[in-house]
């Protein structure tokens, strides 16, 4: 059976979270949005690129934004059941991610692990079965 996979790419910067930290990382040059965006996108692309060898296709789009601690950002995505999707996110601090369908939370939620630039990278997937999507 032919398998077709897609990767949804999202890169996220956590500038606000960093600024709110009591012990911000020392930096000699200010981190601009442009630099942070390029850096986050590059890391997310690098992560997504690892899936290409397995036949995944990258949806050519990304989101970049500064997240505030404790406040979530929701992005609507339309997916086809039967296809398998991975979301890739990268930021300069841990990111917690979850997915919901329009009516109910996914049967097997995207677990809350982080893709954390410069420290460790973990890959998290959307459930391959999509019965709960409506």
């Amino acid at each position, binding site marked *: 059976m*032919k398998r*077709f996979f*897609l990767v*949804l*790419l*999202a890169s*996220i910067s*956590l500038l*606000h*979270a960093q600024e709110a930290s009591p012990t911000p990382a020392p930096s000699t040059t200010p981190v601009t949005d442009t630099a942070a965006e390029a850096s986050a996108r590059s890391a997310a692309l690098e992560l997504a690129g690892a899936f290409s060898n397995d*036949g995944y*296709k*990258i*949806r*050519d*789009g*990304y*989101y970049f934004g500064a*997240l*505030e*601690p*404790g*406040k*979530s*950002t*929701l*992005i*609507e*995505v*339309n*997916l*086809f*059941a*039967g*296809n398998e999707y991975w979301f890739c*996110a990268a930021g300069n*601090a*841990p*990111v*917690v*991610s*979850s*997915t*919901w*369908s*329009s*009516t*109910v*939370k*996914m049967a097997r*939620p995207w677990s*809350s*692990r*982080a893709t954390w630039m410069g420290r460790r990278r973990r890959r998290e997937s*959307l459930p391959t*079965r*999509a*019965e709960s*999507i*409506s």
Partner: protein
Amino acid sequence: MRSGLRIGCVAAAFLAAAPLVAAPEQALKPAEMKSALVLDELSMPTPGEFFAAINKVERPNWSQLGRKAGPLATTNRAQASLNLGTRVADGFIAVEAQDGQQVKNIGKDIIDLAKGLGVSQSILARGNSIGDFAENNDWSALKEELDATENEVKHQMAEQKDDELVSLVTIGAWLRGLQAASTVVAANYKPESAKLLRQPAIVEILVARVDALPERLQKNELVGQVRAGLVEIQTDVTTAQTPSAETVKAIQKTTTQLIDAISGPAAATPTPAK
């Protein structure tokens, strides 16, 4: 075996916090769903994704779904933008059909349409890449290249303050994809594949995009026709979880009329695969 094949609208939530924070158990509230960001490149599926899902329940003869391009030259920028979108979707169909020459022809059409819209500069290289990948039968790379080409056109449109045309490219691509898919399903009706045509969240987004266009564009006859067609499709896909055979035919008829209006009478409509 997979079941419940249909399109799903989901929201991905990103939260800046320590790892392993418990996620809420209940579904998102309507107000929360409304607050979700809708981003053209991220929220909308590509025609390639649509066709991949169709391929899992059908074995369409994609070469029968190709069409000849209608006249590309027009002073109507709305029509050119919609047509550009339809040609991107045609590119995905040609890739599914593994028709390298057709992919190259479509790549040239996309460049020509982009030139007419004044956004050709940076996508010329994309046109060359499409030609090269088609020459080498690199179908996998072509899917990503077509997606990237569409997005590059949209980026340039946005840069030159033609944001409103971006939505029309998206609509053109989606309509042509839906036309091809509904043609496949109408020719060999199966509930599993019919469910894939049911995309209420996407139609809702597209109707809202048309409603957000500047007044002068909304008065454009073709844009008005497209809006009316989208509303018809919206009605068709919101009434039942599984579109009936009649509904599929209605979607096919509506999308075919719109594609003919966008691409001109010279463009051949696809022949249903028997």
